[in-house]
């Protein structure tokens, strides 16, 4: 429901889009944002949303409302209704009008398309609309993201979704409670191999290969391990997996330091563009809808700055909402490609976001779901992450899967915020899903873990 309509306009139908050119209000908003005309006055927008809601409650039938308004005139109607309904108080309740505890924030990011929502929120002014002065700071690697987050140099950051889990547990860092506010993106990764391996499409031929992943605690690492293990290779013995910051992957592939990588875009596409690699498979083919990166901050920041955190939440969700719409993807590619953000050729970013891409083997492929931006932080995904951390020996002993998942992934909070913004949020925080055809049931993680042939657990 667009908040931009004037509910006191007798010529408007409430519930469709404002200008009548688009099928839905969401589409209209995307188009308006791309034209740069989307209202920057949030308060006016909120007021309208509330007034619309009130008018719809008073006049469930739209034609009755229109007849009423025509008869008495818009302003008279507003005065009459405002005398009975306290619009002001309603607004305050809806907006959580607490003052922002901290207005200028630093948010770290790695220049990859996974970070699309939190990056695009900057040039498109979504942070500013929430009253926040945000600097999005490009960072050289994930270890540095972790350190700067622990040092409190960043207020919030782009994370790999396993990172907050690991940091909260004190695995690979000092234990500091971290939270995942939203998932940044789902899918959107790929296994890229060097062009010299064009004939070696079966993982069984990969013995001795050197692969790069962005970080130990990354979906990339876990998915690559999962994939080769399902194909009978032991990821610790038959291949070598090393950590390389995403931006350096293509350069390393070109130099022949690695045979391939399971890495984030745009670097898979960039390897194709530079004719040094080809896309072996998208991670979507391993697990359709897997989470990759997350937007999060420390539990301390959430506690100390609840209103700022809420504002950040709204800004990032607003961006995610726009990013989910395929129609706005070319525009997004345009705004995040310049040197200040991804620093990539626009066509590379656009191929990633629209899913119409060259695969490096001479074919043009089209997969609109190559990357998506479903923000809901499924706690079942956190449980899966924990099973893989345990499987490969990153954590040892008994794990209280549910307790950690629920402490780190703020599903309830996300559901509330998403509902407030008119986004569809699932009613539950746990769901079963399939990874390479094998079903994962979040209620029986240890049984799932026991079902793997190749693992590091005793």
């Amino acid at each position, binding site marked *: 429901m667009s908040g931009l309509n004037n509910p006191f306009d007798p010529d408007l139908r409430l519930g469709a889009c404002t200008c009548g050119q688009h099928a839905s209000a969401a589409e209209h908003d995307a188009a308006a944002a791309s034209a740069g005309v989307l209202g920057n006055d949030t308060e006016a927008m909120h007021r309208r949303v509330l007034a619309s809601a009130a008018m719809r409650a008073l006049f469930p039938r739209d034609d009755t409302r229109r007849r009423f308004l025509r008869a008495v005139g818009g302003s008279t109607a507003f005065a009459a209704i405002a005398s009975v309904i306290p619009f002001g108080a309603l607004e305050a309740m809806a907006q959580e009008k607490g003052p922002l505890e901290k207005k200028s924030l630093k948010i770290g990011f790695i*220049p990859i398309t996974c970070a699309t929502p939190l990056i695009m929120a*900057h040039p498109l002014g979504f942070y500013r609309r929430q009253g926040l002065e945000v*600097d*999005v*700071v*490009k*960072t*050289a690697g994930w*270890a*540095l993201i972790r*350190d*700067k987050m*622990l*040092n*409190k*140099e960043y207020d919030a950051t782009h994370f790999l979704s396993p990172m907050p889990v690991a940091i909260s547990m004190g695995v690979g860092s000092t234990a500091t409670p971290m939270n995942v506010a939203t998932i940044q993106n789902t899918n959107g990764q790929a296994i890229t191999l060097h062009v010299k391996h064009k004939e070696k499409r079966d993982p069984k031929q990969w013995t001795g290969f050197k692969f790069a992943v962005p970080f130990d605690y990354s979906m990339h690492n876990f998915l690559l391990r999962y994939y080769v293990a399902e194909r009978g290779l032991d990821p610790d013995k038959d291949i070598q997996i090393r950590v390389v910051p995403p*931006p*350096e992957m*293509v*350069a390393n592939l*070109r130099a022949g330091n690695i045979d391939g990588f399971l890495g984030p875009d745009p670097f898979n596409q*960039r390897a*194709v*563009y*530079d*004719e040094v690699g080809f896309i072996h498979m998208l991670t979507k083919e391993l697990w359709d809808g897997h989470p990759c990166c997350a937007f999060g901050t420390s539990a301390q920041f959430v506690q100390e700055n609840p209103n700022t955190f809420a504002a950040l939440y709204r800004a990032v969700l607003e961006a995610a909402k726009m990013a989910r719409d395929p129609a706005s993807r070319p525009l997004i590619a345009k705004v995040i490609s*310049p*040197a*200040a*953000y991804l*620093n*990539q*050729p626009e*066509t*590379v970013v656009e*191929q990633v976001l629209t899913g*119409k*891409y*060259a695969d490096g083997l*001479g*074919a*043009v492929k089209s997969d609109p779901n190559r990357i998506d931006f479903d923000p809901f932080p499924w706690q079942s995904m956190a449980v899966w992450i924990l099973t893989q951390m345990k499987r490969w020996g990153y954590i040892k002993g008994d794990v209280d899967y549910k307790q950690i998942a629920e402490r780190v992934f703020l599903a309830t909070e996300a559901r509330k915020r998403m509902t407030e913004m008119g986004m569809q949020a699932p009613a539950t925080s746990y769901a079963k899903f399939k990874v390479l055809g094998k079903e994962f049931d979040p209620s029986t993680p240890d049984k799932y873990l026991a079902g793997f042939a190749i693992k590091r657990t005793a």
Partner: protein
Amino acid sequence: MTESLRAAALSLFFLALIVGAWHLATLPKETAAAAANDEYAKLMGKGAKKSDGFPTPVQVGEAIVKNLSQPFYDNGPNDKGIGIQLAYSLGRVGAGYLIACLVAIPLGFLIGMSPLLYKALDPFIQVLKPISPLAWMPLALYTIKDSSISGIFVIFICSVWPMLINTAYGVGAVRRDWLNVARTLEVKSIRRAFQVILPAAAPTILTGMRISIGIAWLVIVAAEMLVGGTGIGYFVWNEWNNLNLTNVLFAILMIGVVGMILDFVFARFQKLVTYVE
């Protein structure tokens, strides 16, 4: 023709030789026009300017003109002009180097005046001296908990040793006769330090400082590539991400030029304090 003119001519000749060879080596090769599939070719960026292959001298020339024509633009925290980046780097080098001077010269004096201290501290200095800046970085980040101060710390820790060693050596090697003369004349120890030892050891100290500033400038690029954010090292890293070798070459050139200027300044200082016995 004088010697220096001949040298300049020879330098120019070498430059022409290098650029000429470079030009020949990077002449565009005719790629087989396998445009069987237009759409695929378009997605691969055919026809558009691409970063494949080593940049030609002309491309680098264009990059130099482009970057130097607006050295101070500022498009937010991740995209700044080369002038601003260099200023950040010089600021960090200046801070780290200054702290190193403040520590190394007084300490070097002390060590130099006491042969016992010299022998006792020598093993520590010898172990710490060859450690690479990048090895210090994780430790610095973990303990200092601030990336920009960590950068300065790394500059400090890497540039302190040559100064320390040279100061100690210079102070220790002051001619006995001069010290004896001072003693005969009953010069007080502070006055002796400043009016006898300092001028005598100054050339050696300056040599140490000159080596140190060179090292500091070497270290900053590595440190900034790791820590990111601002500076010439970050600029190199950011352009490397984009596989933009043209800008990387431009940055290399700038690093060289600035390093040369720094060295030149210290060479001048060195000349000022040199004396003939």
